[in-house]
């Protein structure tokens, strides 16, 4: 994980064949520039970045569901609960499950766990839109390779 550049996911662990669920992991680094301000002398992961990690987890699942033909953009965060501090060096297990896929949007329930213990959760809604003009899609596909996303199974050539 490199939270200072919003790389919150290290690895896609599993995607359920039914494309309803995903499991990802992200190791909170021992050092990052975000800890200079959050907080000086007491580094903890900002809650907004935990929500971002859950959003990115869900994002990989939505990309798999539409075979990288559209891009999910976070639209709504509901019922976000941040139950405990997350510290440098801790390895997060991130899970997301689709609650509903509508026309142009997806709603998902997502959680982060630490050694089996629930530490945060939220219900997230994404707009699912055509890729913007430019480099975004190839960049996202490159990131997919880095996080071991199974492109051969869940992306069109």
């Amino acid at each position, binding site marked *: 994980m490199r939270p200072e550049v919003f790389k919150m996911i290290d690895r896609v662990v599993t995607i359920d064949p039914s494309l309803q669920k995903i499991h990802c992991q992200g190791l909170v680094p021992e050092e990052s520039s975000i800890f200079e301000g959050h907080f000086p002398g007491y580094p903890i992961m900002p809650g907004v970045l935990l929500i971002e990690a859950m959003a990115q987890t869900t994002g990989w699942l939505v990309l798999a569901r539409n075979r990288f033909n559209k891009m999910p953009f976070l*639209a*709504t965060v509901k019922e976000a609960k941040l139950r405990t501090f997350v510290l440098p060096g801790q390895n997060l297990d991130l899970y997301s499950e689709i609650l*509903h*896929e*509508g*026309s*142009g*949007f997806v*709603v998902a329930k997502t959680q982060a766990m630490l050694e089996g213990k629930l530490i945060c959760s939220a219900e997230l*809604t994404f*707009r699912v839109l055509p890729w913007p003009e430019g480099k975004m899609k190839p960049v996202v596909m490159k990131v997919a390779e880095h996080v071991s996303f199974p492109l051969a199974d869940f992306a069109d050539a």
Partner: protein
Amino acid sequence: MSSTFDTVANIIAETCDIPRDTITPDSHAIDDLGIDSLDFLDIAFAIDKAFGIKLPLEQWTQEVNDGKATTEQYFVLKNLCARIDELVAAKAA
């Protein structure tokens, strides 16, 4: 058993914090009730769940953008409810 309109109006009132008695069949969701696109996602989610359908929002938006339909056809509530009834009937057929 409540009507389609009652169900939709209750969803809008609850989702957008709009007084239920101000919502009528002739209300335009956008122009009269001030519902924005983000709130409409919540409404669509609730309608999809309540009726077991999938409102074709992308298709409707495309038709409006292409000038093939007006927003009134889809977002005046009596018309929205008629579309919902059509989708429910199509699903049951």
